[in-house]
């Protein structure tokens, strides 16, 4: 006399919709776990310093590190004509990989705390 379980009915008659639901739940789980990982990383990073990225400009870095733009420009080695130039462009001008410039600038900003 027992009625068939709801999942059984849906599996027998509406497989595609049920499969889509499983897929949506899997995607949700994926994003939820990635969020937790990023959250942990963010908590570690917050105490230290903001990351530098190749697309950031001198003005952007200065503002996010709470420094005057001129002081960051001096650290990079060329105080003139740096506005709106990204680290990638500056590294190209200086003929070196941008990772080099980022590593050097990060170290300098760390030691040169106001």
């Amino acid at each position, binding site marked *: *006399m*027992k*009625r*068939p379980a*709801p999942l*059984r*009915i*849906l599996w*027998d*008659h*509406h497989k595609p*919709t*049920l499969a*889509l*639901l499983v897929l*949506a*739940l899997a*995607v*949700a789980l*994926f*994003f*939820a776990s*990635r*969020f937790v990982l*990023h*959250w942990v*990383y*963010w908590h570690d*990073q*917050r105490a230290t310093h*903001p*990351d530098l*990225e*190749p*697309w950031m*400009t001198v*003005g*952007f870095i*200065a*503002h*996010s*590190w*709470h420094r005057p*733009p001129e002081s960051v420009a001096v650290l990079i080695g060329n105080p003139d004509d740096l*506005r*709106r*130039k*990204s680290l*990638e*462009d500056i590294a190209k001008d200086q003929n070196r990989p941008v990772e080099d410039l980022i590593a050097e600038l990060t170290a300098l900003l760390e030691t040169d705390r106001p």
Partner: protein
Amino acid sequence: MTETLLELLPDYGAPFLGLITLLSCLALPVPASLFMMAAGGFAAAGDLPLGLTVLAALTGAVLGDQIGFLLGRGGSGVLQRMERRGGKQAQALARATALTRKRGNIAVFLSRWLLSPLGPYVNYAAGAARMRWHRFSLASISGETVWVMVYVGLGAGAMDQLSTLWPMISDMLGLLAAVSVALLLVLRLWHLLQIHRQAHPRKRRGDRG
């Protein structure tokens, strides 16, 4: 790819940002939310003018919505023919398009900012379901305004945490979109189950079919 595009942002400025938000409204894989946060950061640093940045992002997004809506409307004839064909499927389709015409503006508004990964598809669907143009446009403009303000503001206010904050926001958006799709599917399955039980009351084990 994203980094290369971001490097172009301070050079090409507001019009470039507008192009990015336009493309994102057509389901092209460009990270428009990240771009608006970066633009907010550049504006706070004095590398981009704030007012023009907001205006360009908003204009691009609203134009993109209109293009998506018109593309969807182009396909509305096919849906109408399917609705006229008769039968259960056609009735269900007719109910769905009628619901979209009546309540679609809420879906349009929320899918601009809270459920933004679903936005482009809602545009196409709203057009295909023949939603009224002024209803769509009003929901689109108000939703996009929230979207642009939130992200440009976030970028300007929290730029020192941008590179760590962005991955969390994109995860959260993906999670919200996946959960809302899952919820809709649960509602759909529940509805299908009710229909099945009405059609087969007190069904016994073993005589499934």
